[in-house]
């Protein structure tokens, strides 16, 4: 190979390589832009705010006292669910919610790190003691959904399964008339 030929082949190699690098950069930038667009336009994003709580006092006062756990129908028609995770169960162990309703899940841990995952949905959040997790959700189909703890929380982790029961909107409204906090524990 003459030196001129060698010089030309170096140029060809560099050009092909540059082309590929450009494509790679476009892919990467495109992915980031897509995530930004979906995040802003469709408001799909992980939990945005940080809220704290003291796990050694949650049973005494504040929004996570036992009498306040469960589902409540708010004045605007939305539902708020409050729950805690502790070794090795959720309270309430069976969460009841209406279908086709915007729901806010607020939860925290009373001891170690746990997680809430509702199977068949993309509801998925960590419960870190000291912090409050908030998830917005909406169910379109009634029925029972399994809700396992998705983070290792010591020796009883495999037994930490809760349940979410999605019921008809009017049924829920009727049950909510009696006031208090709703759950499906023992039903």
């Amino acid at each position, binding site marked *: 190979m003459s030196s001129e030929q060698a010089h030309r082949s170096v140029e060809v190699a560099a050009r092909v390589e540059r082309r590929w690098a450009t494509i790679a950069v476009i892919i990467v930038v495109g992915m980031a832009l897509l995530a930004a667009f979906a995040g802003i336009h469709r408001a799909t994003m992980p939990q945005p705010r940080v809220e*704290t709580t003291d796990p050694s006092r949650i049973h005494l006062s504040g929004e996570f006292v036992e009498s306040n756990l469960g589902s409540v129908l708010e004045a605007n028609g939305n539902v708020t669910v409050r729950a805690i995770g502790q070794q090795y169960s959720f309270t309430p162990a069976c969460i009841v919610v209406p279908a086709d309703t915007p729901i806010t899940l607020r939860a925290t841990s009373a001891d170690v790190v746990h997680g809430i995952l509702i199977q068949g949905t993309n509801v998925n959040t960590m419960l*870190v003691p000291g912090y409050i997790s908030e998830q917005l959700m909406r169910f379109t189909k009634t029925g029972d959904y399994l809700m396992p703890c998705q983070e290792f929380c010591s020796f009883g982790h495999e037994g930490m399964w809760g349940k979410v029961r999605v019921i008809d909107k009017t049924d829920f409204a009727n049950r909510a008339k009696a006031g208090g906090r709703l759950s499906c524990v023992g039903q």
Partner: protein
Amino acid sequence: MLVNRKLILAHFWLAFAVFGVALTLGAWQMFIRSPIGTWLSNPELYYRSLTAHGTVMGYVFPTLVAMGFGYAISESALEQRLVGVRWAWTGFWLIVIGSVMAVIPIALGRASVLYTFYPPLIGNVFYYLGVVLVVVGSWIWVALMSINLRVWRKAHPGAPVPLAMYANVAGSYLWAWTAVGAALELLLQIIPVAAGLKNTIDAGLARIFFSWTLHAIVYFWLMPTYIAYYTIVPRAIGGRVYSDSMARISFILFLVVAMPIGMHHTFADPQVGAGFKFIHSAFTALVALPTLLTVFTICASVEIAARLRGGRGMFGWIRALPWDNPMMLALAFSFVMLGFGGAGGLINMSYQLDASIHNTQWITGHFHLIFGGAIVIMYFAIAYDLWPHLTGRELIDIRLIRTQLWLWFVGMIVTTFPWHWVGILGMPRRMAYFDFGDPAIAPQALSVTFSAIGGFILLTSGIMFIVILARGMRTPKVDAGPYRFAIAVHQSATVPVALNTHALWVALMIVLTITNYGYPILNLALGAGTSVPAVYVGAQ
């Protein structure tokens, strides 16, 4: 010029011995939680095993491989005797002592906290001290790699650093810095609590510190594999590296952007706000760049080999590749697994999609495919390639080697594909057993069974690997010649300073870590009232 062969062999043998033990535990775990196993009467045994499996596979095995390979690269690429051999042995023994110190409390059930620690769960203090010793031992290696390169530079002023050594030192710096996150978590938070000096801990802050280590550690595991892609594979199959500078750019990109992205592990966490979650997600997209560049460069390098062997046509050259060469086979398998694993990784780091699979079996499937598959199969290839140079004996079982690689590939696919699937169905991670009698869980039973079978295929392959290496210690003596690395098609006599040194890139890595982690860490560390009582494992 491999002089300190005993040192390198000691690292490899210890690495593969602990790998064998952890692999056996892994196969047992797959079996015992599947429908073909019977429920464990004591689920705690599962978590002991899981802690040991993760600790060995995450901290001990890849670190030893990177160290042994690093010493081999330093001696053979620089053609210079290793400086600081006594320190190297000190590092090795620190890892031995650290591993033993960590394993004893695990075996006694006093440290079943998993390799990710996750306080406020707190295990026996000797477990954490053992892990610290392993990391300190590896930091000696980092220092030695830097010193050896400096000695070489003095003797060869201005000369281009051989690619293998350039990449090796980049990998060592990446490890030194990424290990700092877990080190801070251990030294400032966990160990004082485990030693009984304190009894509260900020779990949110600990998760952020750990994410600093948890993601970039993956790129540290990956480094030997990428070094093999660039500097061993083309030589072994009779080709050339397509581009020396693109290779350097890829390693630099890993060094710079592997670090400030770890918070994509905490998308579902309540202790970080949306802003930093998004920044880390975008930076994680960036880390795909060096891999995309590598895939191009390596495919092009392989094509060169095929065309030199008479391959023709747009795709016809693929047939001309030396498919009976174990290195070719390992590379092909590695790339297939990297492709699937990488695609899964893009889902994990996605700001939106992560919620569908976060902490499900999808995640375990993902990192087993990438680490256990794409990365570890190249560790095998590296060992096979280096072995004759380390032992002075030939590896004669080429057919057995090919079978071993095939089994590892098939086993990994059979294990991880159903694993991803049950993750999509919402199966949570790290459970000692599942109630497959529950109608909602029953549909996952078949997939979990397949995964368990895959686990046994992997175990078979792992045993074959160790047997092949052990038999390679007894074959007749042979002169393997000097250990060489691939050269580039257009090897230029000079390399730009930026592509020949690390200082600028290390500085950039540190700056990016501070911009991406500084505020969240300070915010959590200074915010009062988020420390929670520790929960001691084994005390319940």
